[in-house]
């Protein structure tokens, strides 16, 4: 049987006129409605129709999301159960990890969490009304600012289920209008959430301003119509180079592209890690978490790890020790966090196999089947396939000083896990200058992600339109016209 992926257009669930899509593997194929005949309903040609979003208060938005969250328990929500079943086939996450992440979905919708997100990332006052800006007593004008929602297409990533949940929440709190384009590696989770919204209240303004559709990314028949400044104002595009390339041709004034680029993350481990056996054990466990959490499917996961072990024989020996301990720790991570990868990348396996010819250059712990691996470089160079590291494979690179590591950071570096804390503080400014976007204690890269600026760009603040309202004393303007004042 193949999965049915509904098209959800402004509170209406459509499951007819199905076309087959999806992966090479028979089981992971799915059917979704042909989108072309629904395009007119999918877009909001008249932006004034967003007025209904301004009839409800922020508290009502929070309450509605809260109510939705209560219905998103994967043990009871049959839509999410179906999404889970399909994700078991399409996702790089194995079953226990996926289950853990589905269980976390309701938590994102809790009123306390939504309030914190809105407050921290935009400020509730700006979402609720016009905020008077501070002015000096002698100022003759007044400035008020409000954040307004925009009409946007969200091209979302499918490597972790939270992306869909976050997109729905961001759209609601910003009072925006979203068309969510789902990816083939998770076409159902966002649809399941929004379908539940329809069940809760099909006519609610928040439901009527979110649509979920699948089309094959790059399909010109769909994208030429959608990516038009008369119909949408923003495109929020996650991930791959190929996807951005296809969006690029539609860009023109009036259409704002927000890219959440593909990223890689790394770690810096200072010499303090080698101070005692128990410290090294603890560092290895924390590093294993940064490599193996989410089965290394995330951009937050560590891939290349610079270790200030030294590069002489004793230094390499130290790096090897850390490598061995990290590999062992990787093998004993709890299975809701990390497991052997169910579809270990064949190309990566071929690269690992080929390393056996280079015993003078690399030492590999693990990597025999799908259990993951820790590669320890024998020089201060990462492996040539560093960009392909996945499926719980990390590369420890011994260095004499972390200078090389700092200089290797670039605009595609997202998270850097750092040990010890003092090193983080001493390097944070420089790492930021080189391009790093999130600096975190070693071990916390995947687990504790606070709502915050994402990839250094504050996407929520860019999703809204910042509108100003300015007041000027009419009498003073008259006097200016009469030439009695300089402006």
């Amino acid at each position, binding site marked *: 049987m193949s999965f049915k992926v509904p098209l959800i257009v402004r509170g209406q669930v459509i499951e007819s006129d199905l076309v087959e899509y999806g*992966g*090479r*593997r028979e089981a992971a194929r799915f059917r979704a409605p042909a989108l072309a005949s629904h395009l007119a309903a999918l877009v909001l040609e008249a932006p004034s129709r967003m007025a209904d979003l301004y009839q409800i208060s922020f508290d009502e938005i929070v309450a509605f999301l809260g109510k939705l969250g209560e219905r998103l328990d994967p043990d009871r929500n049959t839509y999410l159960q179906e999404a889970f079943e399909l994700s078991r086939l*399409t996702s790089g996450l194995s079953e226990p990890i996926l289950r853990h992440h589905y269980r976390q979905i309701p938590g994102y919708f809790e009123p306390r969490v939504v309030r914190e997100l809105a407050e921290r990332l935009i400020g509730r006052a700006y979402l609720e009304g016009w905020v008077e800006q501070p002015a000096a007593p002698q100022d003759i004008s007044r400035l008020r600012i409000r954040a307004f929602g925009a009409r946007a297409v969200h*091209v*979302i*990533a*499918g*490597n972790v289920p939270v*992306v869909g949940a976050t997109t729905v929440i961001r759209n609601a709190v910003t009072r925006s209008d979203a068309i969510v384009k789902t*990816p*083939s*590696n998770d076409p159902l989770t966002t649809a399941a959430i929004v379908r539940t919204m329809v069940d809760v209240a099909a006519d609610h303004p928040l439901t009527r301003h979110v649509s979920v559709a699948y089309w*094959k*990314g*790059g399909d010109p028949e769909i994208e030429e119509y959608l990516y038009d400044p008369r119909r949408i104002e923003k495109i929020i595009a*996650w*991930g*791959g*180079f*190929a*996807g951005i390339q296809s969006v690029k041709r539609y860009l023109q004034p009036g259409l704002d592209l927000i890219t959440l*680029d*593909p*990223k*890689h993350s790394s770690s810096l481990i200072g010499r303090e890690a080698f101070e005692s056996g128990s410290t090294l054990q603890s560092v290895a466990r924390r590093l294993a978490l940064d490599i193996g959490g989410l089965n290394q*499917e*995330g*951009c937050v996961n560590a891939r290349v790890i610079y270790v200030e072990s030294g590069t002489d024989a004793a230094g390499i020996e130290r790096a090897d020790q850390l490598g061995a301990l990290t590999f062992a720790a990787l093998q004993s991570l709890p299975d809701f966090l990390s497991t052997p990868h169910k*579809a270990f990348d*064949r*190309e990566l*396996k*071929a*690269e690992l*196999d*080929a*390393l*056996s*010819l*280079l015993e*003078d*250059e690399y030492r590999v712990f693990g990597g*025999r089947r799908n259990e993951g691996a820790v590669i320890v470089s024998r*020089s201060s*160079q990462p*492996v*040539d396939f*560093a*960009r392909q590291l*996945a499926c719980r494979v990390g590369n420890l690179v011994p260095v004499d000083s972390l200078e*090389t590591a700092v*200089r*290797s*950071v*670039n605009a*595609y*570096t997202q998270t850097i896990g750092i040990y010890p804390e003092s090193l983080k503080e001493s390097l944070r400014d420089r790492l930021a200058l*080189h*391009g790093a976007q999130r600096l975190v204690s070693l071990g916390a890269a995947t687990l504790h992600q606070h709502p915050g600026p994402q990839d250094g760009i504050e996407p929520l603040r860019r999703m809204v339109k910042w509108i100003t309202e300015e007041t000027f004393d009419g009498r003073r303007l008259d006097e200016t016209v009469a030439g009695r004042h300089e402006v």
Partner: protein
Amino acid sequence: MSAAAQSVRINSQELARQIGENPVSFLDATYDSGFVIDDEERHAAQLAAARQRFEALRPRLPALTKLAVDQGIESIGGFEDLAALLFPHTVYKSYPFSFIEQGRFDRLTRWFSSLTTVSLAAIDTNGIATIDDWIAVLERDTSLAPIHTFGTSGKLSFLPRTREQVRITVTLNARCVRDFDGAYAGPDLLVDHRPLIAPSYRRGASAIARGMNLMAELYGGGTALFLYPEALFSADVLSLAGRLRAAETRGEAGRLELPAALQARRQEFAQREANRPQDLDRFFTEAASRFAGREVFLFAVWPILFEWADEGLKRGLKGIFGPNSILTSGGGSKGRPLPPDHRERIAEFLGFTRTLEFFGMSELMANAPRCQLGNYHFPPVVIPFVLDGDTGQMLPREGLQTGRLALMDLLPDSYWGGLVTGDQVTLGGFGTPCDCGRRGPYVHPEISRYSDLKNGDDKINCAGAPEAHDRAIEFLLDRSGA
């Protein structure tokens, strides 16, 4: 065996026995007889030959020794054992790129020596600064004629082929031209010379350049027309894309410093870019003046051929060569979209239609010719396997199987011919022969790269890094201010 010797027609049992004893003896038979051997005889012969190669090479190739130990395989019982002993296709480019960046050609040589029985001990790498120099020294001081690939990723594979092996490949291709449609049905290019026409480089160490250089001698009797008769198809320029990519991923630490030896050659590259239009003019003029109406032998991949034909037709050139000329080609469209009538337009320009197409790769000494039904037939000196695309397990050798193609090339005796490719294919011909009548395994026409399948599947992840583009020459010229 002399190249021009009359091949012998022998019965299929005898041929199978000979191949089992010495795969290179296939050159002594007519090529078509390779496709009448029945399954059982072929399998026995192939396994016998593979065992012989394994026994001889295992103790001498550290890479194979290691693989055999890792797989726990002492001897080859059947095809499953052999399938477990194929090298990943990454093996020939498994050297760290830093060897090249830092000019560590001593270490590159040591790495290369683990893949061949040819001794590289006497190689002096002092003073070698570029890949082109390194290849030249290996060629000068050993029996190797190393081959490099095009390295679409920027990292080149190096294959330790010998001069004698290049000769075997060229000879086998001539046998195929002569015998594929029946023994002696085609011309014997080794005897009946044809001028060689090639819209490409004469000098270089790619599999194509090496092959063509020898074809010019053996098929053309020394008469040949190349688009670039003098310029070197440079491995260093090809690898620049890899340098760019590696540099980009390393932030400021990777800021690219071009080796002085490459800097010094920038003028040469700039000159070549500038001369391109004149080279093309000369090529067309000579093709028309020296070879018009003559029966020639032409070799080029489809996109290059089309580019050439298109340019020729624009210049009003049509039906240049004699009607009994021969074109050999292959390689698909290399990802470039060609118009649906490209073959007609190529034929209109060339003036003949006789074409022999191959499926092959630099790593393989014996290519698979295409039959009239579009299927590619491996001669018995190559054992094709299909592996499960996800697990890498060997799929049954029966019926039709789709998966990752793997090959055991039985011809080379100085390096291990077993290789897992990056191609997804459908393989048939086990038990039931192709409708063209040829026996043995064949590959269906639809062939795709696993890497392309992965890129086109609309899966979006937040993890990744930007793709570098192949802009090596532009970069070099830009940097050098030419």
